[in-house]
């Protein structure tokens, strides 16, 4: 049990956390503003991966795929919100959102199968990210370090966006008290559309980054959406910082679980969530529901 080994495990956990963070952050932002649980988030993650790989195949540039795929998918998200979701805000029951986003998940997954076919797409790590870094005697993929860096960069960017910009201020205000913001003259509907688009873009970015790791395949969204829910609950629904902490916790729990308790690896994340919810029912940084 050398220090190098421990470090390798930690980095591995952080790289997992990075991908989870992209998805969870989008989910929590959407919930914070719109109080809806987006079941289609996994399908959007998958769409991002496929679109990203297509952009890469067409342009040959990984950077372009990192830019274009989230923008495209974010746009699709905004369109979906504009056409469908906005009609539901008056309704009391949450069942409508469930149905709508579940339906979207099914439709989106099938569309991906129809457009791209059942054959998985080749992963595309650009050559400059292909190396292996030896840290304290342990090999570690350069790409995973890149993932960790991307996660940190995104976290900082979003944090600054929420704290320092006017748009961020509006988002936080709407999350707290939509009616008041509306009374003050802001188009709350536009904020909602924007946030849904942003959440989808984040998930899509996660998909583009994950594709070189796991290849793009049908069904890549199915498990990831549940992981994202768990993270958001652990961190606290609607809390951006919570999604960050939750991702890191879950990343570590999954790595440790897989390594030391492989019989129970599946269960570990849920044990964690149970413990957190029993101690703090609103999540670590969330408000009581």
């Amino acid at each position, binding site marked *: 049990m050398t220090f190098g080994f421990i470090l390798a*495990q930690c980095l591995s956990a952080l790289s997992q956390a990075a991908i989870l963070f992209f998805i969870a952050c989008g989910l929590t932002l959407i919930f914070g503003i719109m109080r809806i649980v987006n079941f289609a988030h996994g399908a959007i993650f998958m769409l991002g991966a496929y679109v990203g790989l297509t952009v890469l195949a067409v342009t040959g540039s990984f950077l372009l795929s990192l830019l274009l795929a989230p923008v495209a998918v974010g746009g699709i998200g905004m369109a979906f919100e504009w056409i469908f979701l906005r009609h539901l805000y008056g309704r009391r029951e949450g069942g409508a959102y469930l149905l709508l986003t579940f339906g979207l998940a099914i439709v989106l997954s099938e569309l991906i199968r129809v457009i791209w076919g*059942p054959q*998985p797409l080749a*992963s595309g790590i650009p050559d400059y990210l292909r190396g292996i870094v030896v840290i304290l005697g342990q090999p570690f993929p350069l790409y995973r370090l890149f993932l960790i860096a991307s996660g940190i960069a995104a976290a900082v960017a979003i944090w600054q966006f929420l704290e320092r910009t006017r748009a961020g201020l509006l988002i936080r205000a709407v999350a707290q008290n939509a009616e008041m913001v509306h009374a003050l003259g802001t188009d709350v509907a536009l904020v909602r559309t924007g946030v849904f688009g942003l959440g989808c873009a984040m998930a899509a970015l996660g998909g583009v980054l994950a594709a070189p790791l796991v290849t793009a395949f049908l069904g890549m969204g199915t*498990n990831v959406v549940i992981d994202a829910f768990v993270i958001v609950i652990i961190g606290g629904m609607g809390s951006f910082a919570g999604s960050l902490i939750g991702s890191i916790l879950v990343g570590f729990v999954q790595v440790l679980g*897989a390594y030391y308790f492989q019989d129970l*690896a599946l269960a570990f994340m849920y044990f964690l969530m149970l413990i957190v919810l029993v101690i703090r029912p609103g999540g670590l940084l969330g408000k009581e529901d």
Partner: protein
Amino acid sequence: MITRQTMTRRRVLKGTAGASALAAAPGFLRHAGAAAPIRIGIPTVVTGGYALLGSQVIRTCKLVKKLTDARGGLLGQPVEFFYQDTQGDPATCVRKCQELVERDNCRILTGVIVSSEAAAMLPKLEEWNAIFISHGNGDGRLTAELFVPRFFRANTSAPMGARALALYLKDAPEKKFIALASDAAWGRSSNTAFEAQIKKVGKEIVDMVYAPVANKDYSPYIIKILQSGAQGCYVALQGDEARAFYSQATQYGLAERVQFFTEIVAQADIKVLGKDAIGLMGSSRYPLTYDIPQNTAFREAFMREYKNEIPDWTDGEMYQALMILFAAIEKAGSTEPGKIAAAMEDLEVTSVKGPVLMRRCDHQGENQGFVVKVARNDKYAEPVGEIVKIYPREVNTPDCRSSSFSK
């Protein structure tokens, strides 16, 4: 007087003839007459995680229909395939099979993808008066603990895949092995068989690792393999899990430190991994490059039909299963499931994988074992698995109704 011996020889010849005619018939012969078609049900995965394998099953069935109809059908009747989408879910599979049997009168079933779907169907075959031939279900228990008389397995099972590799590894330089498998039934089957076999050939197995079904991040397992000090790593993963694992392993440079031996070499994986797949060794359920007339004919017909798509293991195994089925139907002279089952026992067919004997005691097809190494090949656009060693079927198939090998 027709002696028992002559009958046996005729049976083998007829089986082989029927099977090779299937592959070699030119396409311009008269089409099958307007007699009632022979109905074959294909409850496979069209939508869902295993959609790729299902699409391969369907394309091979379509090819077989084309070839069979062109040579006049089977018993003079055209063959008709009824496709249903099971989504890879056992409950849906049973529901679809029920409908195939009761509504469409398809009592011949094949093309099922997931072992748990197959396990759910087995107890119902008697009630349905149906016969089910596996083309690709690997779980050893299906012909052992879960055996039923109406189930036949034409393909190489997971224990058989492990066996061929273990035999090969006896003379390999690697001494310490670690085994990584998916926590699904076939993965457990595979790892258990490999552990038993590798110990038998005098090697050491350091650890047995199981990744949860649908796990996608393999870094903890990769680190475990690196830490274990093993020189060889047995991998019983398939489909998306396998591709994810190999992608990530390449990123860790694992292949330079450890030699991989995989239980299934899939062309789809090679296509995705590209040059990273070269050097991968493993058991092959369908050896593309096997140079016998039946295989050459099939390969050429396939690549002609599907514009230079390389047949994958599902295509080859599906084709073999259908060849064996058709041979049994011809031998029985009937499409009644009970009669087909009786005809299939002890049937020997030379198929795309060589001579296969469908043994009576547990309905496991005795297949030769193939160990391949992925390498570039000028004849094909992608690297393919080149045969390194072939093991005779008697050695490669487990004991009756079990997953272990006493030989």
